[in-house]
Every structure is written in C-alpha cells, then in structure tokens.
C-alpha cells in the first residue's frame, strides 16, 4: 500500500468516525444502538463524543489537503464527508449495531492511518 | 422568513378564478419578470461602476446576477402584501437602471 492510498483511507476513516460520534451523541440515535433506553447519556459523555467528532473532522480535512493540495483537498473533503455520511446513515437505518461497531473499528484504525500517512 | 398569507389560505381544489389565484399569478409574474429586471439592472449598474477592466466588470456582474434573481423571486413570495412586493422589486430595479443610464460605463477598457 502506498502512502497516497493511506491518506485517502485516513480521510474516509476519520470522517466516518466523526459522523458516528456526532450521531451517537444524540439520544434518538444512540438508543437505537444501545437498546437500554432508560439511561440517557450523561452530558459529559455527549460533549466528549462531539469533541471527538470535531477533532476527527479537522483531521480528515488535513488528510485530504495532504493528498490533494489545498484547492483539490477542500473539494475532496466535501466529497468524503458526503460519502461517509451517506454510508453511515444507511447503516444506521438498516443495521444500527453494525453502524456503531464499524465506528468503533474506524475510531481505532483512523489514528493509525493518520500516523502512517 | 414568514410564509405569505395568501399562500397559506390556499387550499387544494379551490376555484381557479378565486382571488387567491390572482395573488398567485401576480407573485409569479413579479418574481419571474420583475426579478429578472432587477437582476439585470443591478448587474448592468455593477458592471458600470466597478473599478476594473470592463471585461472583468461585466463578468462580475454576470456572476452576481443569479444570486440577485433568486433573492428577488424569494422576495416576491415572502413579502407580506402585493404593494410591498412590487415596491421592493421595482424601486431598486429603477434606481439601478437610472444610475447606470446616468453614469454610463465608466470603467477603463
């Protein structure tokens, strides 16, 4: 695997993680994943989740720029955001647990990908 | 933006000749024709006064024109009364046209 594909992979992984972090901080989505609906997420947990999301979005932008340059990278970032959001929404609708599980995997994989790139 | 009252009052299956349809036709005509007039007049005025080579000034006017047009169409449907709507479209359009006519192209060729 070349460095180039690693950057693209990092951009996708980070962006998917970000969407999952934002969505799972919302009660209406998180309770579809963890059916234990009686305990709402604590406020700190929700804020932490959103923070992870924001950081991942920023890092995926960096990955895009280092792959495609400033101009192309900005365009590509929107494309990556759109594609991963669509994938996440689709999974969340039809297989919520898989959507969250994938997010766990991308959360673990994306720092590695970002580091290697 | 508040939806215009005439739109709200309209129900499916209402008679074609009811005043609601007059309101509607009036707003459609204002949005499409009046909006175009405003967008064109504004862009012409812009292309005359911008301090840049004339080709660039015309291009800038063209780039901005559709944003003006879209805003004008939204205004045609959002304004609370027909009076306000026509006023808001025609006065700026006439002002732009008048200024443009008075100054003429003053940019460097």
């Amino acid at each position, binding site marked *: 695997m070349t460095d180039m594909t690693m950057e*693209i992979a990092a951009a996708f992984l980070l962006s998917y993680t970000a969407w999952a972090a934002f969505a799972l901080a919302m009660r209406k989505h998180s309770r579809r994943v963890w059916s234990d609906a009686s305990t709402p997420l604590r406020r700190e947990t929700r804020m932490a989740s959103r923070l992870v999301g924001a950081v991942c979005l920023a890092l995926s932008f960096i990955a895009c720029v280092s792959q495609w340059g400033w*101009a*192309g990278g900005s365009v590509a970032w929107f494309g990556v955001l759109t594609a991963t959001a669509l994938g996440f929404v689709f999974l*969340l609708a039809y297989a919520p647990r898989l959507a969250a599980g994938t997010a766990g995997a991308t959360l673990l994989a994306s720092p590695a990908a970002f580091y290697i790139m | *933006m508040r939806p215009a009252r005439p739109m709200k009052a309209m129900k499916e299956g209402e008679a074609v000749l009811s005043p609601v349809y007059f309101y509607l036709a009036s707003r459609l005509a204002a949005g499409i024709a009046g909006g175009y007039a405003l967008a064109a007049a504004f*862009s012409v005025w812009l292309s005359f006064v911008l301090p840049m080579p004339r080709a660039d000034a015309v291009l800038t006017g*063209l*780039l901005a024109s559709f944003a003006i047009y879209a805003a004008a169409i939204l205004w045609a449907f959002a304004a609370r009364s027909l009076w306000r709507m026509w006023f808001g479209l025609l006065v700026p359009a006439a002002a732009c046209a008048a200024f443009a006519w008075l100054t003429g*192209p003053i940019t460097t060729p």
Partner: protein
Amino acid sequence: MGWLHTWAGLVVGWVLFFMFLTGTAGYFDVEIDRWMQPERSLPQAAMPAERAAAVGLKRLAAAAPGAERWFIGLPGYRSPDLRLFWRMPPGPDGKRGATGRAQLDAATGEPLQHRDTGGGQLLYRMHYDFHYMPHKVANWIAGVCTMFMLIAIVTGIVIHKRIFADFFTFRSHKGQRSWLDAHNVLSVLALPYHLMITYSGLIFFAYLYMAPVVAATYGAGEENRRVYFDELSGRDDIPERAGPPAALAPLGPLVKDAERRMGAGGVHYLNIYNPGDANARVVIAGGELVPSRKRTKLRFDGTTGTLLRASNPHSASYVTWQTLLGLHEGLFAGPALRWLYFLTALMGTAMIGAGLVLWTAKRRAKTGGTVGFRLVEKLNIGTVAGLPIAVAAFFWANRLIPVGLEGRAAWEAHAMFIVWASMLLHAFFRPASRAWGEQLWLAAGAFGLLPLLNALTTDKHLGVTLPARAWELAGFDLTMFGFGAAFAWVALSRMRKNRRSAKQTVPA
C-alpha cells in the same frame, strides 16, 4: 416558502432528473467512450509527449495546411488518445473558417478504428443540449430549469427547520415519512454539491441568460460578445497573419522545455496559431490539474522558437469564474475524487427522484383520483424508473445495432429516447403499482445483464479486462452490474412491502 419549494421542484422535476442523470454519467464520459468503442485495443502505454507532438504535427500539416490554428491534445491520464483539431482562416465573407478534428491512437499514431458511436460525449452533452433541439433553445430550457432548481434548493433550506436535528435521520418502511427522510438526507448531506452544481450551471451560459449585461457594455449581437470573450481570455494577443511564409520551428525542443517546467506528463496540449506564417505562435499549456482550471501557458515565437512569455496573471473575477466552471466539470479530479463526484451527483439525481415520489406519497390519500395526481404519478414512473432503463438501452443499442449500419450512432440515441417514450406509455397504460414493479425489474435486468451482453458480443468483457487491469472498461461493467443489483433490491423490497400490507388489509 413550502408552496414555492413544492411547485418549483415539481414543474420541472422531470427535466431536472434528466439533466442530473445524464450529467452524472458525464463524469465518466471518457470511460463510457472507451466502453462504447470495443474494437479498440486495451489501453497501452502512450507515446512520450515529444513524439506525440511530432506525430500530431505531421497529420495536421497534411490535413490542414494554411490553417488559422492547429490544436494537438496530448495523451492524458484518462485517455491515451491524441486529439487533433484545426480551424481554417475566415472566408472573404467574414464568416469563421471551417473546422476539422481527428483522434489518433497514441501507440501507433494511426486514426482510431472503431464503430460509429456518440459515446459518453453524446450522453454527457444531453444534459444541456437535450439532443434533438437547436443549441440555443436547449440552453435556454436548461437555464430556466436550473433557475427553478436554485429556487427549490434555497426554499428547501428555509423550510427544513431541523437540518441538524434530522441530519442522520432515515426511517425505513414508513411510507411517506421514509420518502421525506430520503429526500432530506440526500439533499442535506450533499448540499454543498447541489448548490455548487446549480449555480455554476447557470454561470456556463450566463452570457446568454443575462445577455443585456454584456450588451450594455459591448453592444448586442454575436460579434460583440466575441469581443467580450476575447478580452476576457486574453486571446486577442495573437498577432494577425503576416503574409510571408516561414517554416515552423521544430516542436521537440519546445515540448522538452515545457516538460521541464511542468513535470513529465504535465504537458496537456499545444496550440499553433498561424502555422507556416512569419507570425506563427506556439502556446504550450499544462501543469497540475486544479479546480480553477488554471494552466501554465508558455508562448513561443513559432518561427524562432524563443519563449515570449509565461502565463499571464488573471483577475479575481476571472479566477472565480473559472473555479465555478472547473468545480462543475470536475476535470481536475483523479480517480478517487472522480468517484466521489459521481456518487454525489447520483445523490442529486436520487434526491430529485425522491422529491417527485414524495409529492405523490403525500397526496395519495386526499387527491389520489384527480387527473393531475395521476399525471404526476405516471410521469414519475416513466422518468424515475423509465429514464434509467432508457440509458441502459443506449448501451444495449451500442452492442446490438449492426456495426456497418448507416447512421448507427444516431440510432443509438434514438433507441434511448424510443425506450423512454415506451416507458412513459407503459406507465400510462398500466396500474401505477404494477407499472412501478415492472419497470424496476426491467431496470434491474437492463443494467444487470449488460456485462453479460458485453461478454456475448465483444472480446472486451470482464474475463479479459479484469486480468488485464483495464479498470476503465472493467469498472463500467461492474458499475452497471451494481446498478442492476440496486434496482433489484428496490424492486424486491417493494414486493415484500406490498405483500405485508396486503396481508394486513385482508380481513381475518
């Protein structure tokens, strides 16, 4: 605003669906070209720029001596072909000179041999020229529809009060609710693209739609408009023909010089003005592909070969203009970004389709029997399901119409529109629910079986293209199969849903 959104979207929704679908295909126009020319050998390494320029020059000198301009398009990353174009000087009546073009195999330098086809270019051009119309009429229709689209987008943002709260919300199997969710998700997630593609679409023909703005400064008419464009692009820097003939300087060293500045493979094309004249100019363009379409341009004296000037700087409005057009076309996009463009554009197509279906889903209970409702419903079926079938038919026609047939390229396009018309007719003569099911299954078959048809009629099928790693060809077959699978999935879930609701309504 809700009213405006609904009707701005509905009135021209079917035309917009056509524009989005054919425009989406346009992101892979070159690849579709290749697939529709199966006689061509599998892509091989193209010749180096220097030799390609020499081969092109030789052809042009033979085909168009005394031309006003010769163009040589060098092999790029998407296409290994060598593209030639020429324009003859204006006649005594002042009319612009005749033009000609040729496409050469960059491995052999010989003209390409393949079946007569409009290819991906024809499909892509349909999204603004509608194929059967004079260009100007078509461009106007496209412009009006695009303006409706812009209004629909802006009003859509205004009326969608829960953009962030519903950002990830898609509830399946909920009827009208699901269609609204789908329409919202497809709109919101790709909103930057929708806005960009719509506004820039208007900008392409802004000089036409807003002709008074150009005319106010330059005067009305085609001639004055050309003055405007020449000023804008700086094309007026090329001197007139001097008269006395002079030999053209050898191009090799010039291309080499350009390649040194732009990087290997970085030279995109050459323009040779006034070839054979003392005032000949050679402009070599290239460099990294960027959204702003900016290229490094080197201008050489055509007889001495001395470098006159490197790129001229552009104004901010010029760069904005070029960036809007560049973002729309996506010509700068490499493979990964090109797929993202394709996916996002597909989402736009699907958004329009979902919006059209939503209109009927919302009204079925109340006004389901009216003529207007039925008309919309049938146009929906014949377009949302029928138009994709018609595009598949365009590809089927490419393989099934005999290679030697007179005018076969035109018939490929006719086949597409005949099939579309048939789908609309079918929708009008069948009960709506059945028409949906039948057309969705037909779409599944039409796309899913294309790779098989390809294998039966050509030797450029997946069994060959996959081992050879000819991705532009293999990718086409696989994508078509993917579309077939997607249509089959939709058709299947429709069948399951209908069976469920039938069970519920049957009294015990």
